[in-house]
């Protein structure tokens, strides 16, 4: 279960990072049509993946995600914990 969660999280983190970086670029280049198209496409891909991740592993956003019963937001692990994160440097 956890391997699959971490794989999804890695894909989602990659998409979200592209969105963060393009967002900053667009702040100072609001008329770059190509960058904007790319940004919109990445955000849509990330949103689809995020919905899937949340259905499988619980809410990602405070007060923007719905939850199954019982309230799943409080579930461990939290992002600062070793178990939560996927490994990037080398493979396990």
């Amino acid at each position, binding site marked *: 279960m956890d391997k699959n969660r971490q794989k999804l999280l890695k894909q989602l983190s990659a998409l979200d990072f592209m969105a963060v970086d393009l967002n900053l670029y667009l702040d*100072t280049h609001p008329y770059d049509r190509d960058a904007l198209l790319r940004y919109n496409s990445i955000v849509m891909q990330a949103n689809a993946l995020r919905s899937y991740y949340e259905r499988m592993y619980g809410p990602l956003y*405070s*007060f923007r995600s719905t939850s199954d019963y019982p309230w799943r937001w409080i579930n461990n692990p939290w992002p600062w914990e070793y178990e939560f994160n996927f490994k990037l440097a080398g493979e396990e």
Partner: protein
Amino acid sequence: MWIYEKKLEYPVKIKNPNPKMAKYIITQYGGPDGELAASLRYLSQRFSMVTPQARATLNDIGTEELAHLEIVGSMVRQLMDDVSIEEIKESDLGAYYADHDKAVYPISAAGNPFTAAYIQSKGDPVTDLYEDMAAEQKARSTYEWLINLADDPDVIEPLKFLRAREVVHFQRFGEALRIVQDKLAEKKFYVKKPE
């Protein structure tokens, strides 16, 4: 307002604790060129910033710095995880332990508590953006010195990510500064309505 997302911007997965490294890296949590100072600086300056581009840049980089604060805090915590009292004494972390156990507290590598004196919010958009560019360079240098002090790839990879973000932020602030200076240099035209 802010919405918390329950994940890190970049993963922190440190297998081998290293209290010495925790003592150094904590400076990017609460030190003079750290992420807390960065986010407070940008998020405070945005209220008096001019031009839509520069305002958005301060808002969004200030927000990303909060995500970096979380990454650095996670690194410090994992580096101190399961460390014995003997290791704490050997690694010079005893003074920190006396005040904070293994909790994460905003101080510099030298032990100075966080202070708002690290930042400025001057009300002059050009002055503020120059300060922001300098701040990004100072943080980039700090990450380079931290990378020099580290030997574990689990520690070096997130430090490299954070260093690279400082470079991007410096670039964006430079662009914002140019936009602001162009705007301030524009000739002002006043049109009088005919009677």
